[in-house]
């Protein structure tokens, strides 16, 4: 049905053991081999401060310039419009805060989808107006357009594709509606940038290298020319403090590598996710597979199992060698259900998000599909809810 294209995560040198299937790349992808190679080379070659004038510094400067040019090209801006940050969260915060400062003459409101990443919601704070999504997790464009009729809108924020359910958002139409109102749009592209550039005339874009197989600790913020965006850092600095240059180099190299293979990888993972969606629906009773079945990220799917405790399900899957994530309240620090599942109006307990590495082996997928129904049935039997 689909072909195994890589070594698979049964490979012990990837660091999670012979029987551990890692199915949570939407949180952090394992380091891409190209990133590892670039990182090791840059540790030897790019340790100097690129701002100095001696030979070692010039070498570091060359590496930085090349990495920035690569990242900029792949997100669709010129190098001078790409800001490097110490994390994706920092980039998201910088996008929102800089956007609010740049547009403070016009207002303080941020119009955003109800399914933004919590990092973006935290940056928006009290200034937000949340626009609803439908049952599949897609932005309600009519409500989005209406939100710009109110006075004082400084900024719009939209995730390119949901990090929890995978549904792709109508970024181009959303940009159009915002620009009619003269409002710049910030797009959080963390989940999609490894697959393709974000279409449309967005003004600000952020992403995080660890989501595409680069190292943790590298975020990017693209600021299109003409955008009213003002850095919140002292002395009008756009980048603040020393960059981790070897990690930046590795981030750029791995983004180029994953983009080069994106067409093939996406086509394969789409068939894998289709299979998982079909099999989970067919073999697990009382399950709700959520998110758009077609217009979605290639590598991610989400489902909720009625009457099952999400934390218990995560632990049971972990014991069988499957690392997954959950939007259920019992798995969150706040004991609140995922705001994304809440906004969609879908079941929040017993929730599992599966996000696939690009080299996931067919065997691992089949093992997951073979074991899941028994795991869920076992938990239901334990809780005495069978047949409800």
């Amino acid at each position, binding site marked *: 049905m689909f072909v195994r294209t890589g070594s698979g995560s049964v490979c012990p040198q990837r660091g999670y053991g012979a029987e551990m299937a890692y199915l949570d790349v939407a949180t952090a992808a394992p380091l891409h081999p190209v990133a590892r190679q670039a990182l090791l080379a840059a540790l030897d070659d790019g340790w100097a401060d690129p701002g100095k004038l001696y030979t070692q510094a010039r070498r570091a400067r060359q590496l930085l310039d090349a990495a920035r040019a690569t990242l900029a090209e792949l997100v669709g801006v010129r190098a001078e419009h790409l800001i490097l940050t110490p994390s994706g969260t920092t980039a998201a915060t910088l996008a929102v805060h800089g956007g609010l400062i740049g547009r403070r003459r016009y207002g303080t409101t941020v119009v955003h989808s109800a399914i933004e990443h919590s990092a973006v919601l935290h940056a928006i704070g009290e200034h937000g107006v949340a626009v609803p999504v439908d049952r599949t997790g897609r932005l309600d464009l009519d409500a989005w357009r209406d939100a710009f009729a109110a006075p004082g809108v400084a900024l719009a924020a939209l995730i390119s594709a949901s990090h929890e359910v995978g549904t792709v958002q109508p970024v181009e139409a959303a940009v159009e509606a915002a620009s009619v109102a003269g409002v710049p749009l910030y797009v959080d592209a963390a989940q999609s940038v490894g697959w393709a550039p974000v279409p449309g005339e967005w003004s600000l874009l952020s992403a995080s290298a660890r989501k595409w197989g680069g190292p943790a600790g590298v975020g990017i913020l693209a600021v299109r020319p003409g955008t009213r965006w003002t850095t919140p850092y002292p002395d009008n600095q756009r980048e603040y403090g020393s960059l981790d240059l070897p990690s930046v180099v590795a981030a750029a190299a791995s983004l180029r590598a994953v983009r080069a293979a994106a067409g093939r990888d996406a086509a394969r993972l789409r068939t894998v996710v289709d299979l998982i969606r079909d099999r989970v629906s067919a073999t697990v009773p009382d399950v709700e597979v959520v998110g758009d079945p077609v217009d979605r990220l290639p590598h991610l799917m989400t489902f909720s199992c*009625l009457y099952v405790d999400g934390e218990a399900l995560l632990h049971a899957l972990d014991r069988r060698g499957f690392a997954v994530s959950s939007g*259920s309240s019992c798995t969150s620090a706040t004991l*609140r*259900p995922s705001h994304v599942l809440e906004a969609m*109006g879908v079941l929040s*307990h*017993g929730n599992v998000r599966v996000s696939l590495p690009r080299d996931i082996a067919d065997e691992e997928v089949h093992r997951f599909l073979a074991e899941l129904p028994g795991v869920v049935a076992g938990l239901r039997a334990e809780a005495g809810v069978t047949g409800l």
Partner: protein
Amino acid sequence: VTPEVLDCRGQRCPLPVIALAKRLPDLPVGALLRVLADDPAAAVDIPAWCRMRSQEYAGSPAESAYDVVRLR
């Protein structure tokens, strides 16, 4: 009409939904069951359960209270 009340306060999800699923079949078709649940997930999961089970979610008359009508 005083509705039947199912008190699930202090219970974490999915327990209130499980209690609802166990209690509703005891009531006649057309009956209203008021579920009291202070776990924030109940606000999402009780309407979702009604949709999945083709029962009627009749809204939240007060904070931490959710009305369900047995349809079948």
